[in-house]
């Protein structure tokens, strides 16, 4: 596959992030190419989630630049990131608990809807047509993710695996160019993981969405991703294709240590 050689979509350059005295991420650089699936891996506390938060504007790094689609930016608000085409999911499902599956995914269409307050008030004509047009889009996502049977169920009542799927749906509804997935398979059983892997691949294939994902399950990462960047204690220790990374001594050391710790837990 040649996807990893596409043009650079996102370039992270020498980024450092501190909270008070705690260094979360130190001097990290890597890029994400258009159309690829890029994995960010590393042991717990390696700064993976912080990295995602920097990319979509939740955290503002003290140092370094981020170039997205050719535009350099330093500090940006999350909603601006959303507008520029970045969507994401969360490690611990962050759905809107008071809403149904349908409404949750519909909320992903927020930026695509434009009818003003007064049309919304009377909910006729353009406002209703807009709502219907977007409902159709949302239904296509529901169909894609095979969650028709829970369409109108409040998300709080869904099993965990389905919630993760709905969250993916909500991100897809934004029609993002870059999709950030924070441990999309955390807490899933084997079957759910397989389903989720298939969905991620399908998203990448069918919509051509560029994906950056954080994942713990090494097997999944190696199967899914085109390129992998490895973090440890906030620093980058390796970057390359899954095979390259697998044989990298730094990675082996970092992961063996973790494997031991996890086993002893």
């Amino acid at each position, binding site marked *: 596959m040649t996807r990893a050689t596409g043009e650079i979509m996102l370039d992270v350059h020498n980024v450092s992030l501190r*909270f008070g005295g705690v260094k979360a991420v130190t001097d990290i650089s890597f890029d994400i190419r258009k159309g690829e699936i890029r994995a960010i891996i590393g042991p717990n506390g390696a700064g993976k*989630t912080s990295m995602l*938060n920097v990319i979509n504007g*939740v955290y503002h790094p003290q140092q370094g630049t981020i170039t997205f689609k050719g535009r350099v930016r330093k500090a940006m608000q999350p909603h601006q990131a959303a507008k520029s085409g970045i969507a994401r999911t*969360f490690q611990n499902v*962050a759905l809107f608990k008071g809403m149904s599956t349908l409404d949750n995914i519909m909320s992903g269409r927020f930026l695509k809807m434009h009818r003003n307050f007064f049309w919304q008030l009377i909910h006729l004509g353009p406002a209703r047509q807009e709502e219907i047009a977007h409902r159709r889009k949302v239904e296509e996502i529901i169909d894609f993710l095979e969650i028709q049977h829970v369409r109108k169920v409040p998300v709080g009542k869904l099993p965990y695996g389905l919630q993760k799927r709905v969250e993916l749906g909500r991100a897809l509804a934004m029609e993002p160019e870059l999709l950030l997935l924070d441990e999309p398979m955390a807490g899933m059983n084997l079957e759910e993981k397989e389903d989720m892997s298939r969905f991620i691949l399908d998203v990448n294939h069918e919509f051509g969405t560029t994906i950056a994902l954080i994942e713990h399950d090494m097997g999944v990462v190696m199967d899914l991703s085109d390129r992998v960047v490895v973090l440890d204690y906030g620093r980058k220790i390796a970057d390359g294709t899954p095979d390259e990374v697998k044989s990298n001594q730094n990675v082996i050391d970092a992961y063996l240590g973790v494997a031991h710790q996890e086993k002893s837990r």
Partner: protein
Amino acid sequence: MSLLYDILVAPFVQMADAPDFLAQVLWEGFVSGILYALIALGFVLIFKASGVFNFAQGIMVVFAALTLVGLYQKGVPALLALVLTIAVMGLLALAVERFIMRPLVNQPHVILLMATIGLTYFLVGLGELVFGGEPKQMITTELGLPTGSTEIPFGERGVVILQHIDIAAAVIAILMVAGLGLFFNRTRIGRALRAVADDHQAALSVGISLNQIWAIVWFAAGIVALATGIMWGARSDVSFALEIIALRALPVLILGGFTSVPGAIVGGLIVGIGEKLGEIYWGPLLGGGIESWLAYMIALVFLLFRPQGLFGERIIERV
């Protein structure tokens, strides 16, 4: 221009002109600040241990004072009435624990807040039903609290008048804060209470059930309320009008943070003194009565710059 002068210059000229009056205002601000701090302390105790924003704290103040005076009026000797009132506050604490806290544990903040507003309604009705709604005199002397006042010469010609009851209030408030401090730091239960604020599991490992802890903090808050009630009652009358004082104490919490005892004290003093100064020196410009909201405005402006309060910790949002 003259408006700016009135706001920015004139009050300070006024202060400099009559330093004794300024000192008097500061003293009175200090005393009411202390009482605010006491009310805030009641809030903080309960919030820290159970996450309940106890809206009924204000009414507990009134209710305690009313019970004390009411019992006395029914012929109970003053000190016995005091003991009985403490017992009533204990019963109240037990009842609150059993009928509000226990069934509503784990409900969202707003539900618990509503429950305490319901409790407010209940206590208002109960107090008035049993003791009547008309304002009453606090039994200051009967409790052995000092009355009268001392005039202290100030500056060249001026004097500052210190009401003895105010001095007593200050002393008692300080003693109470110190006592609570000892209780929290030196006793097993106190340490458990502090643990519970951080981690419910940890508290359980100390061997005290959450239910007991709640009963204890509510009781402690009741005692604080009683002390506050006696002081306020001695300065004005005992009536449900006092309830408004409790609402006035809320900005103290915003300033100090919901969980900080020192914050409650410092916040109380800031609000008490600031309010008095504002009322005396700037109030007339606006037609008076500004103390009903001035403290809130101060707190609000303050919050905009420090959302976590004076002593709260900075919140880092994890995603």
